[in-house]
């Protein structure tokens, strides 16, 4: 694990000057800082991507950095940086009727939920912050912190639109976690482990060894997982908690400035988490699609991130193409369609495995 490696490295260098305790803290903090930097940079990139992709879908050009003086660089590449800086320094409004402690807590909690999921995400053969032996379970578990904080945000804002957003997301996210989890069980059954790295190792050896192509039931599980994951991240067509034409801005209506930026950031961080889990669970993680080509550990990072970005791109694409579902239809899709499919899928995979392996 990364923390161990860093700890060993530090203790060789600095054991004479600093005690073991502080060294351990340092070894833990360093990857966290790196991760924070990664999330920020990633969010900037993906926000820019979203602006551009959505603009191209809509026959526009998107941010071009035009304007007065030197603005946002070539092709508007600096646009997300300007947005982030501006949001950070905007006035921070806490409505007088809001429940202040909860109102302050909610944006940080949603970010923490996304952040700690990153810890168990494998980026390469040895690049993982905490190689937990229940990795995939852990990610599913801490992923639900998001729903708690969205309810908090909706409730504490003391605004009816926010309340609607919070309540809708409570129902939505909790429901959609079930088909998502059940679809991942297929992966766990095939790989025989909960450990992320072991799941990826199971898929070594080219594109046909990916779990996605293991048997005919898995692609169905993948689709169910991906759609449920999209619902969990509140993206159109499942963006009911913040549906703009219905609930103004949903649970984030009352948030301004930095706190709003945290909601924004965690939405994109969550997208990364669910896409990375899909990439690791179904698409071979950091393995190269073709055996023996570009298969070094450094390329592993490239493969992992490009697979994840491909899935994120599909999410963006769908967001700007489809209308929104209604709240009861959303529930119907989950409980009456996805849940039976996911359950049947598990049996199908089990029987298939027994017969053919």
């Amino acid at each position, binding site marked *: 694990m990364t923390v161990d490696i860093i700890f060993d490295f530090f203790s060789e260098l600095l054991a004479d000057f600093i005690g073991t305790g502080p060294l351990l803290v340092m070894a833990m903090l360093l990857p966290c800082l790196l991760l924070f930097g990664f999330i920020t940079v990633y969010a900037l990139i993906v926000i820019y991507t979203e602006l551009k992709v959505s603009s191209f879908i809509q*026959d526009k050009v998107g941010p071009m950095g035009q304007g007065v003086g030197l603005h946002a660089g070539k092709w508007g590449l600096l646009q997300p940086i300007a947005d982030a800086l501006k949001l950070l320094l905007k006035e921070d409004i806490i409505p007088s009727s809001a429940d202040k402690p909860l109102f302050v807590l909610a944006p940080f909690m949603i970010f923490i939920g996304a952040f700690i999921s990153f810890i168990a995400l494998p980026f390469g053969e040895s690049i993982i912050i905490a190689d937990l032996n229940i990795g995939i379970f852990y990610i599913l578990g801490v992923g639900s912190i998001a729903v708690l904080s969205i309810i908090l945000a909706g409730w504490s804002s003391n605004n009816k639109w926010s309340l*609607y957003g919070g309540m809708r997301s409570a129902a939505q996210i909790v429901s959609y976690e079930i088909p998502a989890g059940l679809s991942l069980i297929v992966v766990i059954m095939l790989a025989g482990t909960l450990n992320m790295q072991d799941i990826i190792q199971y898929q070594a050896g080219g594109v046909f060894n990916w779990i996605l192509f293991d048997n005919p039931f898995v692609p169905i599980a993948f689709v169910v997982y991906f759609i449920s994951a999209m619902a969990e991240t509140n993206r*159109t*067509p499942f*963006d009911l908690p913040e549906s*703009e*034409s219905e609930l103004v801005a949903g649970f984030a209506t009352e948030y301004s400035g930095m706190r709003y930026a945290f909601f924004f950031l965690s939405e994109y961080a969550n997208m990364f988490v669910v896409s990375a889990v899909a990439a690791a669970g179904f698409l071979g993680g950091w393995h190269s699609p073709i055996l023996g080509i570009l298969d070094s550990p450094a390329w592993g990072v490239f493969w992992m991130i490009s697979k994840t970005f491909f899935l994120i791109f599909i999410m963006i694409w769908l967001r700007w193409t*489809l209308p929104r579902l209604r709240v009861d*239809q959303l529930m119907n899709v989950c409980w009456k369609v996805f849940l039976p499919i996911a359950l049947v899928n598990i049996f199908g995979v089990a029987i298939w495995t027994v017969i053919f392996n």
Partner: protein
Amino acid sequence: MGVVHAQEMVLNIGPQHPATHGVLRLQVKTDGEVISEITPYIGYLHRCFEKHCENVTYEQVIPFTDRCDYLASMTMNFGYVVAMEELMDIKVNDRVEYIRVIMAELQRIASHLLGIGAFGLDLGAFTPFLHMLRDRERILDIFEMTCGARLLYNYMWVGGLSHDLPTGFVEATLHFLDYFEPKVDEFENLLGHNKIFVERTADIGIMPAEVAINYGVTGPNLRASGINWDLRNDDPYSVYDRFDFEVPIGDGRKGTVGDCWDRFYVRVCEIRESIKIVRQALDQLPKTGDVHQSMPKKIRPPKGSIYRRTESPRGDLGYYIESDGSDIPYRVKMRSPAFTALSVLNEIGSGWLMSDVLGILGSLDIVLGEIDR
């Protein structure tokens, strides 16, 4: 265990809300997501149109009619000048009539494009809306070529037009129609046959024909309820009797007659019919004729009153003009189609979920400028 009492929550949608198409306030009583009663509050855009009419001369009223329904200014002008010409017994020459029809039908296309686009936007489909705005811009280009303005034209005057057609107008319009005709199918496929869109609109917000008539709902909303009522056909004004076009009516293809999907689909079909009319009108357009020929020097209608209806993209647009023989109207009343269409919202909207109500509101295609006047 105590008994938990559920209370109805009163919720104000608007005046500033992305889905209210302007400044409309809907006070709704909700039980969770289900809305039990809707009370629309209007007047946030009351700009005293009728008071202005009583203080300016007859020709000065036309720019104010423009600003009432800012999505269909040409048809607003059209209705007023038709009423005025009937009151004053003016007969305009054919070229003027044909140009008016071309403009009104192009305006109908533009207005319906925005109408169905905004309807899609209310249901969360952002991209079709922008595609429709993109094609609307091309129609605005044609208008700009004709009279220099993009949105509010002041183009049709009593007894004539402000300008004749510019050179190259016919070619530009035909070019646009050739470009646009396949796009209508694209829009229909993009929205109308999208599974989610159908789920969200079919069988939602059903407006039975009796309710529609009782509430005075007209235009595409009435036709979607299965009633063949189009003033262009049933009470022809101008030269509409010279064209061959059909009146699309709702047939409940995806659900029940008079649901949101029908209201959407009637508009799509009307765009097609308007294209047909424009093509025929361009074909028959007289080459000669002075557009200022029948314009009176001073507009001084005889004492009397008139109520004249025309078909605007939103329905029956009526002008009640009372003249006392001077050059200033004694009273001008506009019977606006969206005003009555909005009044039916409580009848057809209550009992549905919140998302549906905003969808139903979008399907009625209201313009607040015309409701509040």
